[in-house]
């Protein structure tokens, strides 16, 4: 195990990694921006280095400053958390060049999986079920119209270099498509420096189901069951649970085994998530692989008893996997609610401010991950995620009742501060959700009760943080209603040509 690990993140996930290091006897270096100089991770760290001003680009996204801080402090490894540089293959490579272990998969694996088209090509070869629709990138609006006509509307225009809910536009008719095509290309160019886009059928009413995998550097891998993250608003997950409810055991097994096979086939190491869309007939469509710890990892920890950040660190240190597949036994149900500092009554606008009151819930089977505390100034510079409340119970009904209890007692107040707790509790009361029969359309249904639901485009990317953990629950068509074979193109270029800059 390492002697000293640098934590290149902030907020609750920096604290999460710090806790894991403490428990393993590893010293911690927390790098931080000027805005976070008095934050909890900074106060609890063994060493801290201020690496830049509040703006993420010059601090948490500043690879040179982070590597310099590691050099100064003698850290042997860098844990990137989620968001920020966690899926940046270049940063992983810079770490390696500077003798630092990056806690994550090898850079070339990260690079290959960062490009959606490449990732799907690789997974297709590994035998994973791909979504119907085009994954070929489309040089002209006319090409896009052709594909859309073939797969049927609504369709979604997506940036090849996008991901995490960014760079997507939903289109309901051929009339809208040319403008959406142009807009998405332009946005992708700005956001990713890469304007390649492709078109697929959009499926609103499916479930977002993902599989947690854990692989070591010696060719071993296990899966840790499924999570359902279908409760999303504008591609941002709000409530997550493990295991995925109301699916046939055979579906869950297939998903888990398929996911692990896919990850192992590309030489994945560390903790990863393989995301799928599952339709009403329980058909599964591969979406993407995430190379980082996820915001929602606690629910998997609670049903398996396995500490994922411990395992990340062990794997990064070269230890062979400490768990065999038969050691992984799922128990009960865990549900997590993200508590964002946003105003549900004002279209989830960020509502930061100073916390005059802050008292997280406690008690049986209740876990809180938060960097908040009385007097904390929620900064407008970063993501709005303030806390995660995760609960466990032997069954799903018990877990949902417990989560409602915990959220009800969570006291957060300050001038201007609002949270998503009231909205989350609305979700908990929804009949379809209680029955486990909800889809990714749930939140829109709650927010827009009437018939015609306009699916909004993802918000423009904000600076780093949990933001970057937004998901891609949007695309994917069911089998073609007319019974035609879905179009599934494989990109022509190999991984390097598709590298996400």
């Amino acid at each position, binding site marked *: 195990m390492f002697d000293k690990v640098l934590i290149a993140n902030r907020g609750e996930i920096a604290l999460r990694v710090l806790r894991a290091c403490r428990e393993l006897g590893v010293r911690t270096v927390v790098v931080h921006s*000027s805005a976070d*100089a*008095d934050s909890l991770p*900074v*106060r609890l*760290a063994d*060493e*801290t*280095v*201020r*690496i*830049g*001003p509040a703006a993420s680009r010059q*601090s948490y996204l500043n690879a*040179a*400053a982070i*590597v*310099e*801080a590691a050099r*100064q402090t003698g850290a042997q490894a860098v844990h990137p958390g989620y968001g920020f540089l966690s899926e940046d293959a270049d940063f992983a490579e810079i770490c390696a060049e500077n003798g630092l272990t990056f806690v994550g998969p090898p850079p070339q694996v990260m690079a290959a999986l960062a490009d959606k088209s490449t990732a799907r090509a690789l997974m297709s070869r590994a035998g994973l079920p791909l979504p119907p629709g085009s994954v070929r990138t489309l040089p002209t609006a006319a090409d896009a119209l052709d594909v859309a006509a073939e797969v049927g509307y609504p369709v979604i225009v997506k940036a090849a270099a996008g991901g995490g809910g960014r760079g997507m536009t939903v289109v309901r008719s051929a009339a809208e498509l040319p403008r959406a095509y142009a807009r998405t290309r332009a946005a992708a160019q700005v956001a990713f420096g890469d304007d390649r886009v492709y078109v697929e059928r959009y499926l609103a009413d499916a479930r977002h189901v993902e599989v947690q995998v854990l692989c070591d550097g010696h060719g071993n891998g296990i899966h840790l069951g499924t999570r359902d993250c279908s409760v999303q608003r504008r591609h941002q997950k709000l409530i997550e649970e493990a295991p995925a409810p109301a699916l046939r055991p055979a579906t869950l097994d297939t998903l888990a085994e398929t996911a692990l096979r896919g990850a192992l086939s590309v030489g994945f190491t560390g903790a990863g998530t393989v995301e799928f869309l599952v339709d009403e007939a329980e058909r599964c469509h591969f979406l993407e692989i995430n190379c980082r710890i996820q915001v929602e990892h606690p629910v998997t920890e609670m049903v398996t008893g396995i500490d994922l950040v411990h395992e990340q660190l062990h794997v990064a240190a070269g230890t062979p996997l400490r768990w065999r597949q038969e050691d992984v036994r799922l128990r009960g149900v865990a549900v997590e609610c993200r508590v964002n500092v946003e105003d549900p009554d004002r279209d989830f606008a960020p509502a930061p401010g100073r916390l005059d009151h802050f008292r997280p819930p406690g008690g049986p089977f209740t876990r809180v991950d938060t960097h908040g505390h009385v007097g904390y100034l929620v900064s407008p510079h970063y993501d709005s995620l303030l806390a995660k409340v995760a609960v466990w119970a032997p069954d799903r009904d018990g877990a949902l009742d417990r989560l409602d209890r915990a959220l009800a007692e969570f006291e957060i107040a300050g001038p201007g501060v609002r949270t998503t707790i009231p909205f989350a509790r609305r979700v908990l009361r929804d009949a379809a959700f209680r029955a486990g029969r909800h889809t990714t359309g749930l939140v829109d249904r709650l927010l827009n009760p009437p018939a015609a639901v306009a699916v909004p485009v993802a918000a423009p990317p904000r600076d780093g943080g949990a933001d970057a953990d937004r998901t891609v629950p949007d695309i994917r068509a069911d089998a073609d209603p007319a019974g035609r074979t879905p179009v599934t193109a494989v990109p022509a270029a190999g991984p390097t040509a598709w590298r996400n800059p």
Partner: protein
Amino acid sequence: MSADTGPEEVLDGLSRHARKLVAELAGPVRRVRLRSGETVLEVEWHGPARPAPAPRAEAEPVPAPQVQGVAATDRPVVRAPVVGTFYRSPEPGAAPFVAVGDVVRPGQVIGIVEAMKLMNEVTAGQAGRVVEVLVEDGKPVEYDQPLIALEPLTGRDA
């Protein structure tokens, strides 16, 4: 709050009350004075006071964040533009860019911070006389860490 109430505890109480008062009362407070028996606490603000960070920090029982070398006073300083290693001279053995007593002009190089093998020149943002060099040659610095302290120029310097 059991047993004996020593002057220590009384002072604790006074500071806490002063803090709370200033935090809760609006407006720029100029002076606070508390006394309990033999124990007196008095705070006076020099100019239009900010809401009292000083006593707040004083009684804070939480270990202070490990901020290294932050200048205690309000005198102007030149700060590190990046995290890295601070060098006072252009190359080993050479004379330092500036020494105590020197007058610097805005834009003048006062040192170098090396980060990732890149040499970043550090320039003064304002004119002043160097009164202290706050970081030793070759030592690591954080972003924004004060490197040298200045005093504003008087008529004589200018």
